[in-house]
């Protein structure tokens, strides 16, 4: 096996054309993926998209129907879970109810043969509990711990084994919002400190985007798009990704002319848009049905048309339907006669200097050509 040093690195985990079927259901469909050492990668998608199956195939709880799963360059398809150098944090932690915190954490070390000396086990359990800030809880029973504490016991129980990969199956789903935020930061810090490859499964886009180096958006057992969180947000390849990662407005239209990366689109509702960007891998021909995606924060609102910045892709006259106060932002739901409903998001300025728009008020909306991204109509 080659490693590190000369840059010729073997991926820590690799999927080679992996398909998994449960009877008629295809849970993973020709997965191709390489995960680098030390990377924080997320599988993001709705339930039933195959993300958990992918994770369970790495853990060894499921075997691929076709293709190979590799860990450190070695095929592990038939390797049982208890022989794999990976550990998992389960969705509701699956802590052992008959053991106290210290024995839960020590469990992995106690399975080794030869079993490490007792002093070493004690020392490493103590170090792990330090890491997750649970010193002094050694003798607590699991049911005496809060959700957040149980979560940290589960992390310590997995990390003490110094796995090559830590698998996290919706680890934050059972926590309340505030705690979830804290744990996101804690997990990210932890990953940097221990330097272990983390693979996270989640349906929560915020969780995936805020923590990961790379995100795989999944759908129907396949990876729709993978990239850095910023990549996915700025350059979604299709409507599914644009919709799943952040919010997006979609305006249906037809291609009039296409040149370079951009295109002029005739909107179904009337009027044209000059879009500056086209989704990756999409080649446009005049007459193609497409969607123009525009992020809400890219749309500027004004009371008078001449107050809008010049050189926009389109100017839309609309009426404010609804105003949603989000603290530092205000979200407006607008309705245009021609384009239907769309959302905008604006930083909230002091009401002394700028009066917010009221429901029912007539406004003008505009966005730049760069903000308009042409995607397939599906």
């Amino acid at each position, binding site marked *: 096996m080659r490693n590190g040093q000369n840059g010729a690195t073997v991926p820590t985990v690799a999927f080679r054309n992996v398909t998994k079927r449960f009877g008629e259901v295809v849970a993973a469909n020709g997965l191709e993926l390489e995960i680098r050492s030390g990377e924080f990668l997320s599988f993001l998608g709705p339930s039933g998209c195959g993300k958990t199956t992918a994770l369970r195939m790495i853990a060894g709880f499921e075997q691929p129907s076709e293709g190979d799963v590799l860990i450190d360059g070695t095929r592990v398809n038939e390797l049982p879970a*208890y022989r794999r150098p990976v*550990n998992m944090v389960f969705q509701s932690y699956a802590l052992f*109810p008959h053991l106290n915190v210290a024995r839960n954490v020590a*469990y992995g070390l106690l*399975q080794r043969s030869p079993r490490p000396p007792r002093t070493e086990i004690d020392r490493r359990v103590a170090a792990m509990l330090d890491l997750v800030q649970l010193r002094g809880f050694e003798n607590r029973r699991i049911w005496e711990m809060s959700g957040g504490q149980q979560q940290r016991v589960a992390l310590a129980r997995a990390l003490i084994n110094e796995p090559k990969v830590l698998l996290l199956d919706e680890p934050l789903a059972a926590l309340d919002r505030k705690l979830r935020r804290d744990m996101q930061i804690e997990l990210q810090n932890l990953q940097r400190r221990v330097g272990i490859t983390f693979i996270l499964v989640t349906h929560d886009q915020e969780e995936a985007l805020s923590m990961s180096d790379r995100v795989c958006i999944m759908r129907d057992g396949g990876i729709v798009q993978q990239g850095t969180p910023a990549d996915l947000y700025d350059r979604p390849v299709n409507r599914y990704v644009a919709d799943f990662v952040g919010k997006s407005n979609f305006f249906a239209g037809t291609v009039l002319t296409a040149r370079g990366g951009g295109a002029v689109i005739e909107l179904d509702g009337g009027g044209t848009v000059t879009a500056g960007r086209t989704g990756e891998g999409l080649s446009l021909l005049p007459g193609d049905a497409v969607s123009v995606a525009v992020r809400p924060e890219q749309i500027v609102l004004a009371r008078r048309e001449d107050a809008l910045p010049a050189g926009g892709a389109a100017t839309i006259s609309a009426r404010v339907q609804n105003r949603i106060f989000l603290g530092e932002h205000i979200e407006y739901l607008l309705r245009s006669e021609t384009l239907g409903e769309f959302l905008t998001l604006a930083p909230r300025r002091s009401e002394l200097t700028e009066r917010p728009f009221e429901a029912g008020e007539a406004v003008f909306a505009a966005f730049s050509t760069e903000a308009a991204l042409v995607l397939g109509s599906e």
Partner: protein
Amino acid sequence: MAAAAVERGGKGVTALLVGPAATFFLLLLVLPLAVVVLYSFGERAPAGGYAPAFTFENYLNLASRGQAFLNTLMMAPVGTLLCAVVAYPMAYYLAVKASPRWRTLLLVLIIVPFWTSQLLRIYAWLLILGSKGVPAYLEMIGIEGVRLVNTRFAVLVGMVYGYLPLMIFPIYVSLERLDKRLLEASADLGANPARTFWQVTLPVSLPGVATGSLLVFILLMGEFIIPALLGGGKVFFIGNALVDLFLQSRNWPFGAAVAVSMVLVMLASIVAYMRFVLSRGGMRQQPLV
């Protein structure tokens, strides 16, 4: 005041609800037990039965029935243990291995024999273990002179057979409720299936074993049909001694003393057992490694 009336009404309802059960226990449990305790200090009437007196004679005489106590106190725990050992794999198969389609059928099959009377079922074992049963077949393959009936072995077989379902069901329930993800977690942490069984499945299902054991143990302590039929008068239990004292020799006071002693021994065993289970069953902290 209205509140006070409601309060009084509430107490009335409580009394109404508790009343029947309290009366039941008072009339059918506490009172008879008090009578038994009272009798145990009395004398045998010349024609049998009870004559008032206050003597410890009956308790001092207990040693004469020592063998029955010894038999019961030896064989009830052994029978309970054997029952658990036989029941656990069956319950495990039902809860973990059997497909849901078969599970219900198998569970019903376990219960079906218990629709017939215990007397008949134990009689059946008398035929199986009797000279025309298993020993006859053993003779055919050259093993001669095997006697099974009227031995401790026969009594143990009857005890395990008779009370198996009471052991299977609590264990089955505890295994069925076992969170399968705990087993995955154990495998994930490096334990092979055998170690996972010893370190997770068995300890987590111990409460079921404890419940079953308690049920079976209590019933075995009072057992008398099985030793009477399969022990052939050679293996005597306290229950047999009681039948004998009350119905044959009509020495009620002595019988009462034996009965009171049995209740005390049983209470002591159960308390000791519960303490043991609670300390072992993981309700308390255990040292590392």
